[in-house]
């Protein structure tokens, strides 16, 4: 078994190459940091070769999570060879990582990608020169067109079999190389001898991770420090900068000798960018774009296909067909009930939303793959910083409008711990595809298909993110320096239809699989609990069912929110399994197996809520903790029970407060309830919220803030 790692900068086509080599349909994106976890696959036709796709990184520095993940994999998992993929249109910055990778003592193949674009631009790259400079084989590829991928893999296999370790050439200036020699001599007993040079450089840079893992005895550490300081004084710079500067100087030299660039005109990408990030046009364009996406996928095209799948496909064809079939076989009544009411009713209602979500995902993928998302972060950064977040938080939030799980995963590109944690906590406030199911159904039931409710929910989501950002940033937990926003703006490119479809499918698949597994089981379970009494006999009236009994015991919790009936309680609990389950559950509880599926659900839900309690139910379900899958992702990304609990606690608090205020004040204003204790409490909550929003930053935390800003500047 041979292990080959794929490493390279973000946006250099790594994931495309990986898909090409392994035949898998990994998701490919065009904004920095798409591959947030390493992914493995077997080389097509070679079961004995494992290919690992590492996250895209610019450097092997010890600072960002992705860099550390990649670095640890390359150092500790001992891949047999590395394919270092390089964007041929941007050699200088890409080769910077190469100078670090070749120091790891692992055979390396350089694959220069996007050769089609390089040739189209009229540039020429001298491969022999590069081979000589780095001492490793160089292959030219064009992963999108599938050119050269195999050759790169075979070269890597060949090298891995030989097991010949790459001996890095001296690339630094004489004084630095001399110092590295001295350091090597002092540390040779502490570290892996094949990586002596790597470690020597890390000591020179004073890499905190390496220093902590391989501590030197005091006398030798002092020795090393003195030699480093000597060079630093002479060059009037610190070790880390000296190394970085000299790496780039070396690369400049190589590029000068091996690349011939054609005189450049304004590229198409530049021209698009002139319009899209234009001072005056960019914001209107952005708003129009988002509005168009949601208008098409939620209101027009989306609702047409959803109505058809709900009313015609699942409401009529499948239900009638199944009833017919079951009657002709002559199955027992309870089985008919389970299949038609429980499973088809519940799962069907949820699956009905799949076409709509696929349209939404299609557009989001299009925006992402084209490179527009990175510009959105660029445009929105100033605004988001006011809320204690960065433009980078916008990408997870936008992805969360599809699904919170990849949204939470995408927060890994945010370097600063505070910002990342806060984004994880808040990103699911934006309604995801599954929450859209709840919104759509409630809008149809209570708000007469009015077109403003759904956009309002998105706006409210954004408002709650802003509100939470501002109040949380003032707490001691989140006070600190703002995260850096040094981000590449990748060149625009026309997304390939195949890529967008793969991406769309990857996201929808997740949803469909969930409908087929978790929701399938949940619907069956809820059907059982609602159809049977404690004596395990089928009940005529659901109010005597096991579920009603269970729901009744905890429904008091939700009574102040206006949906203290056991049905509302059960729907809320089952929504934690998967948000769209709320609707599936309500469908099952209202005995949906009618010809007119949607209308029956609407009638059933309509009888359970008033307009005010419906709004409260919707708000609570949108803002309380997301589904289990997203809670799982939260706990994984937070890396600890403490932060997970803080996030969940805040979400429960906010969701409950919103539902409470809406119901209590709504009842007084619209339903003519008397102004009682509940309404007073609601006003107090609003008062507290306003205070938290406008209060000055506490002095103790301000100090942390100032210090942080100082260190950051």
């Amino acid at each position, binding site marked *: 078994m041979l292990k080959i790692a794929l490493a390279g900068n973000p946006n250099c086509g790594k994931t495309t190459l990986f898909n090409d080599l392994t035949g898998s349909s990994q998701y490919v994106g065009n904004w920095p940091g798409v591959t947030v976890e390493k992914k493995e696959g077997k080389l097509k036709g070679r079961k004995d070769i494992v290919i690992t796709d590492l996250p895209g990184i610019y450097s092997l*520095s010890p*600072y960002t999570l992705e860099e550390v993940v990649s670095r640890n994999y390359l150092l500790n998992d001992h891949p047999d060879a590395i394919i270092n993929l390089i964007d041929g249109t941007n050699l200088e*910055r890409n080769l910077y990582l190469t100078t670090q990778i070749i120091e790891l003592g692992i055979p390396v193949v350089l694959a220069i990608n996007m050769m089609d674009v390089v040739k189209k631009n009229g540039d020429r790259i001298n491969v022999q020169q590069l081979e000589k400079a780095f001492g490793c084989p160089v292959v030219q590829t064009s992963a999108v067109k599938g050119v050269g991928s195999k050759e790169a893999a075979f070269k890597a296999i060949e090298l891995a079999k030989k097991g010949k370790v790459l001996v890095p050439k001296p690339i630094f200036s004489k004084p630095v190389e001399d110092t590295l020699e001295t350091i090597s001599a002092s540390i040779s007993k502490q570290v892996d001898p094949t990586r002596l040079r790597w470690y020597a450089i890390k000591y020179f840079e004073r890499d905190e991770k390496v220093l902590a893992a391989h501590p030197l005895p005091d006398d030798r550490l002092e020795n090393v420090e003195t030699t480093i300081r000597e060079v630093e004084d002479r060059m009037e710079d610190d070790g880390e900068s000296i190394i970085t500067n000299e790496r780039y100087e070396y690369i400049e030299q190589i590029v000068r000798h091996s690349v011939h660039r054609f005189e450049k005109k304004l590229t198409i990408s530049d021209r698009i960018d002139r319009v899209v990030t234009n*001072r*005056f046009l960019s914001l209107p364009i952005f708003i129009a774009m988002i509005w168009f996406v949601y208008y098409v996928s939620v209101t027009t095209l989306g609702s047409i296909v959803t109505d058809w799948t709900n009313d015609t496909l699942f409401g009529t064809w499948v239900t009638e067909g199944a009833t017919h079939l079951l009657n002709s076989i002559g199955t027992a009544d309870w089985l008919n009930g389970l299949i038609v009411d429980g499973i088809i009713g519940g799962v069907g209602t949820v699956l009905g939303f799949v076409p709509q979500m696929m349209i939404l995902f299609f557009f989001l993928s299009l925006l992402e793959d084209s490179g527009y998302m990175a510009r959105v972060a660029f445009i929105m*950064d100033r605004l988001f910083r006011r809320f204690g977040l960065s433009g980078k938080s916008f990408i997870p939030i936008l992805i969360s409008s599809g699904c919170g799980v990849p949204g939470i995963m995408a927060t890994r590109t945010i370097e600063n711990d505070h910002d990342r944690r806060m984004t994880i906590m808040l990103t699911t406030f934006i309604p995801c595809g599954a929450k859209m199911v709840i919104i759509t159904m409630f809008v149809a039931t209570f708000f007469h298909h009015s077109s403003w409710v759904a956009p309002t929910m998105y706006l409210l989501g954004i408002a709650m993110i802003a509100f939470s950002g501002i109040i949380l940033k003032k707490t001691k937990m989140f006070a600190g320096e703002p995260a850096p926003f040094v981000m590449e703006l990748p060149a625009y490119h026309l997304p390939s239809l195949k890529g967008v479809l793969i991406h769309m499918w990857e996201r929808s698949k997740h949803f469909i699989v969930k409908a087929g597994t978790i929701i399938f089981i949940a619907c069956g379970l809820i059907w059982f609990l609602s159809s049977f009494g404690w004596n395990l006999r089928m009940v005529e009236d659901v109010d005597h069912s096991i579920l009603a009994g269970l729901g009744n015991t905890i429904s008091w919790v939700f009574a102040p929110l206006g949906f203290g009936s056991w049905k509302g309680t059960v729907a809320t609990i089952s929504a934690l399994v998967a948000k769209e389950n709320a609707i599936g559950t309500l469908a099952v509880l209202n005995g949906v197996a009618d010809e007119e599926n949607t209308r029956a659900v609407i009638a059933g839900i309509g009888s359970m809520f008033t307009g005010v309690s419906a709004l409260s139910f919707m708000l609570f379900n949108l803002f309380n903790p997301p589904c289990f899958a997203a809670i799982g992702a939260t706990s994984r990304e937070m890396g600890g029970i403490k932060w997970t609990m803080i996030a969940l606690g805040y979400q429960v608090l906010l969701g409950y407060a919103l539902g409470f205020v809406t119901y209590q004040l709504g009842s007084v204003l619209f339903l003519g309830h008397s102004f009682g204790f509940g309404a007073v409490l609601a006003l107090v909550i609003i008062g507290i919220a306003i205070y938290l929003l406008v209060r000055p930053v506490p002095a103790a935390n301000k100090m942390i803030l100032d210090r942080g800003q100082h*260190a*950051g500047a």
Partner: protein
Amino acid sequence: MKTLKEAKPGETVVVARVHGKGALRRRIMDMGITKGTQLFIRKIAPLGDPVEINVRGYELSIRKVEAESIELV
């Protein structure tokens, strides 16, 4: 001391030194902004921050606060 923060769109400038420390400084340098590098200021974002610059043939977005730590020749 002139920093990148003061540079105007359309200007081409040369880096003298990167100040600051830790992750941010290393990140700036890792992205290719090192001593002697030429930077072209392409534009400022519509809300006044961040700034888009061209460095070593690609586009990079950087905030004014961060640009302040890049000293120019």
